[in-house]
């Protein structure tokens, strides 16, 4: 199952809620304000590095670029809307 996260991890608990239910290996796509969870050097960067090991962690390039975020934690995969569609082809999706 593909988990979609679109809120800032500094303001919303939706990513943490999702992680409580997502099984190991389930892909997670960060988009809109959700992309800040993949930013390097933040107070949650260590936590997110662990998440990137347990899950396939994706981040939407268009939303990264719009927010000027270029330094990411290790293990994150940048995709565009084409890649978003491919993830949805392969998985049912949950929008948190």
């Amino acid at each position, binding site marked *: 199952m593909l988990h*979609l996260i*679109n809120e800032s991890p500094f303001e919303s608990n939706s990513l943490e809620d999702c992680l409580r239910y997502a099984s190991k290996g389930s892909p997670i796509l960060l*988009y*809109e*304000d959700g992309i800040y969870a993949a930013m390097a050097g933040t107070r949650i960067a260590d936590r997110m590095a662990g998440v990137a090991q347990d899950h396939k962690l994706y981040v939407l390039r*268009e*939303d990264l670029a719009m927010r000027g975020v270029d330094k990411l934690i290790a293990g994150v995969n940048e995709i*565009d*809307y*084409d890649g*978003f*569609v*491919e993830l*949805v*082809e392969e998985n*049912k*999706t949950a*929008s948190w």
Partner: protein
Amino acid sequence: MKFGILITEGPYQHEASDSAYHFAKAALAKGHEILRVFFYQDGVLNSTRLMEPQSDDRHIQKQWSALATENNIDFIVCVAAAKRRGITDEVIAEGFKIGGLGMLTELAIEADRVVEFRA
């Protein structure tokens, strides 16, 4: 595959409508069929033809209307949500139709995937 899209947030206030639009375009470009886009809760506000953003900004309703008519996609605006928010036949734009909530259930039954874009 047969896709459905559900939008529950209004345009401009939140990025959800933009994301849904870009996703829909990418899905069509990859040859998928979009059975229906269902506009629900504040999402119904995408459908008003009275929308008039600043000239240098994107026009979200016109983007949607073009997508619907060019690709012959079913765009349904939830009637109860619409009435609550002042979206009526009087203001609804080309390409959108007002319909019942049952059409969301039908979409869930028929589509291979339904993707929600929400706040």
